């Protein structure tokens, strides 16, 4: 199996963006493209060619699920694994997100030290 390198991370909150970037780049050694909205992610996704996408669920404008749907419509991104990130991880909700096509859900708050290995585990699953 090849190893995960390129991650697109979509999150509107600057504080969390910065921590996650650190966690993924410095701890995980990934190449990370951060987008601040679903719209931006759609514009950038094909050019960046991510191997995995992390989507915040609740964003103003396009929320996570809507962004996922739109990304799936792009041929190059039809099969790229996606994980949602959200503060709500009630079992029923997790199941719901999975039916939308997400591979898994990463609960917030996340631990900056373990985020990278969580992401890697989801990608390899």
């Amino acid at each position, binding site marked *: 199996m090849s190893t995960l390198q390129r991650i697109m991370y979509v999150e509107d909150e600057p*504080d969390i963006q910065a921590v996650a970037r650190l966690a993924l780049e410095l701890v995980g050694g990934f190449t990370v493209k951060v987008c601040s909205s679903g719209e931006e992610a759609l514009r950038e996704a094909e050019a960046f060619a991510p191997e995995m996408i992390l989507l915040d669920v609740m964003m103003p404008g396009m929320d996570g699920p809507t962004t996922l749907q739109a990304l799936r419509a792009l041929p190059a991104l039809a099969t790229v694994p996606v994980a949602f990130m959200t503060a709500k991880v009630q079992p029923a909700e997790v199941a719901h997100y999975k039916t939308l096509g997400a591979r898994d859900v990463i609960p917030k*708050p996340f631990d900056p030290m373990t985020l990278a290995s969580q992401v890697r585990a989801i990608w390899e699953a």
Partner: protein
Amino acid sequence: MDASRQQDLAEQMAMLRAVYMARLPAELAELQALAGGLQGGEGDRPSLEALYQRLHKLAGSGGTFGLAALGAAARVLEQRTRVWLAGALDDGYAAARRAFAAELAELVQWVVPGAGERATPSSAIPAAHAAHAPDEAIQVWVMEDDVALGQQLVRQLESFNYRVRLFARIDEAERAAQDEAPDMLIMDVMFEAEGRNATQALADSPALRALGCPLLFITSTDDFESRVRAARLGAVGYFLKPIDIPRLVNRMGQLVEQLSAPPQRVLVVDDDADLAAHLCLVLRAAGMVAEVLRQPETIMEALAGFQPDLVLMDMHMPRYTGPELAGVIRQHDKWTGLPIVYLSAETDLERQIAAMRRGGDDFIIKPVSDAQLVAAVRVRVERARQLADQINKDSLTGLLKHASIKEVASKEIRRARRTGKPVTLAMLDIDHFKSVNDTYGHAAGDLVISALATLLRQRLRQSDHLGRYGGEEFLVVLPECAGVDAQRVLDDIRQRFANLRFSYDGQNFSCTVSAGHATSRHAGPGQEADEALAAAGDADLLAAADAALYAAKRGGRNRVCAAARLPAAGEVPA
């Protein structure tokens, strides 16, 4: 991750945290304004929607920046706005909105400056290994109007590696408390010049009370009333003048230990992945480290890798039951003391008892509230740790006992052999200790021993291992530490120890210590020796350190000597 990158990460995290903390007050104020403007009718929808969004963000971000309690409290409020938005904003809502606003105003209590630094990130990021610097210094504030006494305290505490700030006036400390907080506060009770009693000042000053750190009093009045007043203020120490510094430092050492106890580690074994994720989240929000085991077959590997303090286990899983897995765990001597708690809907008493007979320690009946779960886990882990400490640690110094430190030493020697990195063993012995005991009594002798123990704990890295080897003899294991570094750090400890002034019954005295150390020679990885050779290697290194200590004693004491000839790891001398 290498040390410099880790350092880099720690610094960047600290900066992000600072930015986040700086922004929080404004964010909370805006939330309060939104909640305060709620009118109690359908017109509130846009405000509620905004509150929902922002509380949701806060719930997600708080924990990441070490403010788990803030995150959890925000989550509760978020849920409430969500329920309201889903229905009609009727009279019930109108009545409840005030309580909501009041609770929201209380969120600010979870924003503790400094809390963020001690919580998840810093505990998850071990101190840099390469630099032979002790871990981050503990900040102590000393409030003492007698400047000479204050400065003497500062000097002595600094030699124990505390970072000390002296305040000669109460109002100076009050001002400083606006923007920073120490880890510990030492306070004289009477401030003659200001004519203020510090216990009263403390009760009156919200800034000082909000510090929330351990509080120690120094005083010349020893009456019941004063002691009660100190206890009411939550003091954890009460020291009479003239100050017995080693005793004060000893108490401070215990507090530091409590402050820096590693986070509790919980392994969750449950086939319901969603429930397991939820349990983990709850435990993590309480500052614990939690991990889920998905394949029960790998439980022994998971225990060895994760080193949990407690296993939380579902009773009924598809292929194996909880008691069966507990039985497997208990077959291994190493894990006989590990608390295993079943999480189950099993209310049948007979079957509960049967399950406990199979190696489980307790039951938590599902459904369980988050608070109950956290409390149940926390108490059991604390108890188990206390018990382990009593078994493994020396009661006077809190260091490892003879057998335990020897075991640690051979483990580190084996590891050094595997990794090809050096390990240093050092033996320390207090000079002329018998005469201290004979002249000043055993109580004074105990003080000297615990002072050296505290000094070692403060000056060495968290990754180093310290043991009380015999009466006044200590064994220290320094992994990944070369001989020159060991010489430097041990000599620094020697000098600091010699500078300590002990006082007993009005008599002042000081002590010195001698040390000898030996470092394993590099061995290439893969050159694993067999067990007999390994055991000989351990004894060899220890004997070399002991011989070096003897050389230091013979050379006139109060000095540190390196072993003359360093034995190669695994090499048996002819």
